[in-house]
């Protein structure tokens, strides 16, 4: 880290804007020292304060702050009688390495008297570009580059440093700074962090509720798995049953379609035939009825009717004979009269009369007696009877016979038909088929329902198992987490112990190194070479103890003030070297009470090699003409400035050059 430029504007005695180049280079040559010359009260310490304030803002430990709060301090820093429009402003440009690249950052702080919110305004620029990301985290950022704790050891006041050596044990601030500089605070911080971690984990463990045992969940899981297997098997069985039921239903349906249909067709056909046969039978019977209404019953009395016919004819013939006899008798009497007239011989006449009498007798015989007549039938009836007997009855009988025959045939046909009907599948079988079909359908419905139930059960079990698995996973996770936590707590103790040991060892090691460096530096700067042989540093308090070559302790109060200051500077120098940090060093009033020999040592040996950038703030008596020339001879000065105080305006102006 190198400070490049400091800009002061209306800050303390520095009126207006003053730019100070802090680059430890001149004409391309690297020279570590930037020398500021100023009389007492000339603004040297203010310059130091400006650097601190730029870096740390409210946290900065400035010499003139005392117990003032930040707002008041800022107000106090505003130059008196300055233009109220112009703000007070500090800018510090420095360069450091970020990701192996040199970065030049400009810290800008500005404020006015009585700042409204009690704060300054901070801006970080990289070149001309604002780095808002850094602005927000500036305090953390600078803490990585130049921790506040150690800043006092790099930006130090010679007078203050002397106190460090005088005290039996350094103040806590310095102890902290030393620790952080030596990297010891890392172990400390780690230890504290570990404690925090352990407390957190313990809290978490305490708040974590007792989990169900792993075995219990596994038990449940395996039970559920078994149940699922069983349920799946059952489901398989149910599916088979369902398929069978479906098959049976199909069979029943096929059978119903084929056989039932056949039955229906056959029966319909047969019944139709039967109906038509019965219709013809009925017709036949009707015609028989008509026949019965005719002359047919006369067949029964045919013999009687034959007798009637014979008798009737006889009676008719007799009647005719009777009529003929009367006519003949009349003719006979007229013939006899005629013969009388003819006067035939009596003999001849008698003969004719005898003949006629004989004829009459024959005729009478033919007529018969009256008693033989009982019918007295008329001719019309007789001819009707004759017709009935000869033609009608035979034909009627024949007709009746024919009809009876066809009736018989019809009846036989009906019988055959009925037999067929009887042998044809009966409606009962149809009903059976129907019942079978319905039963099969019902079976399918039931099997389907069973299957669905099984399916649901399987689903539910599957869900349960998922839940158990999840629970198991959560449990495992938590248990691992808990184990982790426990492990962390357990191992934290060990780590704490190890850390303690590590810290002790590290401290010892670092302190040993520091002891050697400080001893070297001290002896290098001291002109009494045999005064101190070894410097021991207390590992607890960091108090310094000196030992002479004989190994006897040298009490500090036996050291002169100058020696004490040298001891302090040697301590700081050693620290800087041990810490390995490349940080600028700023020294205020570096040569307070030193004799010329020690001054020369410092100027010759310390300042040029204290750091790659050494800012010296000196009065004209400290680094006087001789010392200045000495440094110039060494080519150690990069730049020198004179802080010129003007009593008339009570303002300081920075000018190039030194007192001479």
């Amino acid at each position, binding site marked *: 880290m190198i400070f490049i430029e400091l800009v002061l504007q209306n800050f303390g005695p520095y009126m207006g804007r003053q730019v100070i180049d802090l680059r430890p280079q001149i004409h391309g040559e690297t020279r570590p020292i930037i020398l500021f010359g100023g009389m007492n009260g000339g603004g040297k310490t203010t310059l130091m304060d400006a650097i601190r304030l730029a870096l740390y803002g409210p946290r900065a430990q400035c010499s003139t702050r005392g117990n003032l709060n930040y707002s008041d301090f800022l107000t106090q820093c505003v130059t008196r009688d300055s233009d109220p429009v112009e703000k007070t402003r500090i800018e510090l440009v420095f360069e450091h390495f970020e990701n192996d690249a040199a970065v030049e950052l400009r810290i800008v702080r500005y404020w006015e008297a009585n700042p409204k919110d009690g704060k300054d305004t901070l801006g970080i620029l990289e070149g001309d570009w604002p780095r808002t990301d850094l602005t927000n985290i500036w305090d953390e950022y600078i803490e990585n580059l130049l921790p506040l704790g150690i800043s006092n050891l790099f930006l130090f006041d010679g007078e203050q440093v002397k106190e460090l050596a005088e005290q039996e044990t350094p103040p806590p601030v310095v102890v902290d700074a030393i620790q952080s500089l030596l990297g010891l605070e890392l172990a400390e911080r780690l230890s504290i962090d570990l404690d925090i971690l352990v407390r957190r984990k313990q809290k978490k463990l305490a708040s974590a509720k007792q989990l169900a045992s792993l075995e219990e969940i596994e038990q449940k899981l395996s039970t559920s798995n078994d149940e699922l297997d069983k349920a799946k098997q059952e489901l398989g069985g149910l599916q088979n049953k369902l398929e069978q039921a479906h098959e049976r239903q199909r069979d029943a349906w096929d059978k119903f379609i084929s056989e039932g249909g056949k039955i229906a067709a056959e029966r319909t056909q047969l019944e139709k035939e039967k109906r038509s046969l019965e219709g013809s039978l009925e017709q036949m*019977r*009707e015609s*028989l*009825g008509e*026949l*019965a*209404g005719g*002359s*047919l*019953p*006369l*067949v*029964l*009395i*045919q*013999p*009687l*009717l034959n*007798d*009637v016919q014979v*008798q*009737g004819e006889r009676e008719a013939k007799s009647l005719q004979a009777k009529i003929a006899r009367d006519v003949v008798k009349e003719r006979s009497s007229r013939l006899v009269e005629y013969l009388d007239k003819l006067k035939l011989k009596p003999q001849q006449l008698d003969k004719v009369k005898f003949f006629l009498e004989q004829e009459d007798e024959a005729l009478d015989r033919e007529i018969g007696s009256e008693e033989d007549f*009982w*019918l007295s*039938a*008329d001719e*019309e*009836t007789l001819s*009707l*009877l004759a017709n*009935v007997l000869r033609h009608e009855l035979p034909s009627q*009988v024949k007709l*009746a*016979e024919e*009809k*009876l025959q066809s*009736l018989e045939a019809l009846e036989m046909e009906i019988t055959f038909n009925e037999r067929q009907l009887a042998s044809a599948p009966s409606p009962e079988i149809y009903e059976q088929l129907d019942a079978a079909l319905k039963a099969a359908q019902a079976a399918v419905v039931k099997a389907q329902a069973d299957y669905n139930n099984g399916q649901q059960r399987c689903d539910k079990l599957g869900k349960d198992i998922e839940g158990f698995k999840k629970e198991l996973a959560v449990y495992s996770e938590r248990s691992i987490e808990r184990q982790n936590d426990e492990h962390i707590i357990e191992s934290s103790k060990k780590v704490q112990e190890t850390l303690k040991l590590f810290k002790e060892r590290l401290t010892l090691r670092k302190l040993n190194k520091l002891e050697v460096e400080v001893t070297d530096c001290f002896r290098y700067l001291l002109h009494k070479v045999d005064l101190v042989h070894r410097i021991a540093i207390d590992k607890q308090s960091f108090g310094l103890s000196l030992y002479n070559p004989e190994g006897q302790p040298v009490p500090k109060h036996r050291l002169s003030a100058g020696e004490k200051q040298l001891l302090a500077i040697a301590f700081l120098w050693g620290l800087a070297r041990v810490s390995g940090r490349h940080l600028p060093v700023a020294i205020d009033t570096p040569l307070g009470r030193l004799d010329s020999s020690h001054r020369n040592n410092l100027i010759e040996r310390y300042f040029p090699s204290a750091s790659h950038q050494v800012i010296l703030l000196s009065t004209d008596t400290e680094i006087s003409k001789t010392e200045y020339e000495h440094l110039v001879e060494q080519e150690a000065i990069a730049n020198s400035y004179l802080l010129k105080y003007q009593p008339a305006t009570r303002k300081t102006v920075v000018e190039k050059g030194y007192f001479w």
Partner: protein
Amino acid sequence: MEPPLDRIKLSQTAKEQLSKLKRYTKIDQWNILCRWAFCKSLSENSTPSPVPIPADSNVEMSWRVFGGEMSDILILALKQRCHQDGLGTDKETLATQFRLHLHRGIGYLAGDPNIKKIEHLIDVAVASQTTEKESKGKR
């Protein structure tokens, strides 16, 4: 020709018997069945027993309705039968004999267990003809 009686009135028994026959043969005319009954009785050789026959039903018909086209032939048959039976052919005898024959015939037909249908009635006539022919053939 003059019928032996103008109106024929049946007995209650005969009416019931005829009703049965009507049911069997599906012939619903009283006169036709009466014609058959009369002929049936005449075909029997025996003389009907002279029993009193009441006319106590409401079935009543005239001779012409009874005989129809064959009214006169039936009168002749009755006369011939009465003559053959030696009963005389006066109107009263004829009337009596007619009633006896009619009711006896109704009884025969109704009592015949073979007559259950019209064809059985017809068969009575056809069968008598066949037996006559057969007996003729035998002679």
